[in-house]
């Protein structure tokens, strides 16, 4: 019996290692590729670990100094493309758009969710259903109409346009999660505050919000991850580096036949830093938010 338990544990452990590898290897690969020079990468087969790693590729992306390895080889010079110089701008745009979306979510979703959680009024059910249903409307189905709408509003190729779209897409989920969360708080403290003379908004601000930090963390993380990583609408609606977000830039760099793989890899690594940091930092809130929202409608 004990031998069977030990064998089972060994099996689980090796399966776990396999899972870890399957998850990590692509990340490690792209990280290693970004630290290599092109000549190493295109060798067949490519080396597992670069013999001499270099951060020249990163330096090029941020400063425009062509890496020494490329400068010397005339043939490979063509693969150092100007496109990748847009990466830092893309990162900045993505960040600004994501933060804007998070802010709108935090404010509007809190107001709406508190009302859904604590108020009773006619039309509440309908409004709630509308919010929930629209959350599941997939992007592709409304992409074209939204493009045409934005064009008539003059909001194409703008960070503001993106913030508005992303907010519209993340608000339903945020409202839902926060409503669940507010409902789970015992109402006595709020009642006490109301009796003591607080208005609903004051109660919300001074009493409820400090207690709702986990819920707010969850929706903040989700909105950030969604708007930072969103690709399709950014692709449709942006044209200039002024508004292009990082997913659009690395996608266009990757389909550029003149771009070297090492530079593409740099783009990928840079694009993953913020989401990974956010996901790791807010992991617990993301998990509980996901479970709560998907299993309770």
């Amino acid at each position: 019996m004990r031998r069977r338990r030990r064998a089972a544990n060994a099996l689980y452990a090796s399966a776990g290692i396999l899972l870890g590898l399957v998850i990590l290897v692509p990340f490690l690969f792209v990280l290693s590729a970004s630290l290599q020079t092109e000549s190493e990468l295109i060798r067949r087969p490519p080396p597992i670990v670069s013999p001499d790693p270099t951060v020249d590729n990163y330096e090029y992306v941020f400063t425009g100094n062509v890496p020494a390895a490329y400068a010397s080889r005339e043939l490979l010079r063509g693969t150092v493309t100007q496109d990748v110089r847009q990466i830092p701008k893309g990162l900045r745009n993505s960040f600004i758009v994501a933060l804007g979306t998070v802010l709108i979510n935090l404010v509007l979703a809190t107001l709406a969710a508190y009302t859904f959680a604590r108020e009773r009024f006619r039309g509440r059910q309908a409004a709630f259903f509308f919010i929930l249903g629209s959350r599941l409307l997939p992007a592709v189905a409304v992409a074209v109409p939204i493009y045409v709408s934005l064009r008539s509003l003059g909001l194409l190729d703008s960070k503001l346009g993106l913030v508005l779209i992303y907010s519209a897409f993340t608000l339903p989920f945020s409202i839902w999660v926060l409503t669940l969360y507010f409902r789970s708080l015992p109402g006595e403290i709020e009642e006490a505050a109301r009796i003591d003379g607080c208005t609903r908004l004051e109660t919300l601000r001074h009493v409820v919000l400090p207690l709702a930090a986990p819920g707010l963390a969850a929706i903040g993380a989700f909105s950030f991850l969604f708007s930072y990583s969103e690709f399709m609408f950014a692709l449709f609606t942006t044209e200039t580096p002024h508004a292009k977000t990082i997913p659009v830039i690395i996608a266009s760099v990757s389909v550029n036949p003149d771009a070297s793989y090492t530079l593409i890899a740099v783009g990928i690594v840079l694009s993953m830093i913020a989401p990974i940091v956010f996901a790791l930092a807010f992991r617990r809130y993301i998990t509980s938010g996901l479970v709560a929202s998907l299993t309770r409608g």
Partner: protein
Amino acid sequence: MATGGAVAGQRAHSRERRFGRRGYSWLTLAPALALVALFTLFPVGYAAWTSVHRHVLVLQDRPYVGLRNYQNAIEDPLFVDSIKSSLIFVAVAVPLVTLVGLLVALLLNQRVRGFAILLVLVLLPWAIPTVSAGITWRLLLHGDFGALDGFLYRIGAIDEYIQWLSSPGLAMASVIGVHTWREFPLPAILFLAALQTIPPDLSEAARLDRANAWERFRYVTLPHLKAALLIVLVYETIIALSVFDLVYVLTGGGPGSATTLFSWFTYTATFKYLNFGQGAALSFIMAAVLVVFIVVYMRIVRVREEPS
């Protein structure tokens, strides 16, 4: 003290009564509702309008053309092809993602030392931008310089590099594979949460009753997973029908039209040919199909309004 509070309370409440309860409620909902409506109701309505007019960017007049856009769409052979591709994709990818998610959840539910790290790692493929995951795998699966081929070659499994992304059959398989890598964390987390609601006495009792692993799974574990299973299946179907980012960075719809899924087809029809009327018609068709799934989903989860 108490009187002071009560007086203040009365004053505040009379302030609010002027606004009215209903007024407050709708006022706080208005910004959120307006924003959401602006980008759901309005575009859908606009799409309905556009889809029955001839709306091509480079042409000046936009006459009403009835259902001609829809007719053109359905008669386009690529339309049927893309629906077929999407159906194949959904039929394979959704069960695959669900199965992998379930297996991972079952694994992570075992109390093995060091699995805490895995719980952290498992979120990563889902957290990064889909295009980043896609481009990474594109580099890995590259027919000439890919590391996967390099690895297989190195260990002697293959003599020649396999064209993962440029041979028609493999291309679809590759897209499905990358999609699975990217999506499995979500079902895994859901199933894991469901598994952790199983009371340990139940499985202990089953074990004492000499039930083998399969019987334990079937009678103890599975009933607790049914709800999560249904939700995962419908949700992942909705996701699978909307796949776009991966197609863009992995295959561009190719080779030929092997991986032209419906969303990709809508994209090229609209933005490569600038035929917005056609694009709107396609979007509408897609929205109609998805609404069916959404309704199914909401009914499954049975949204219940609790009185505050």
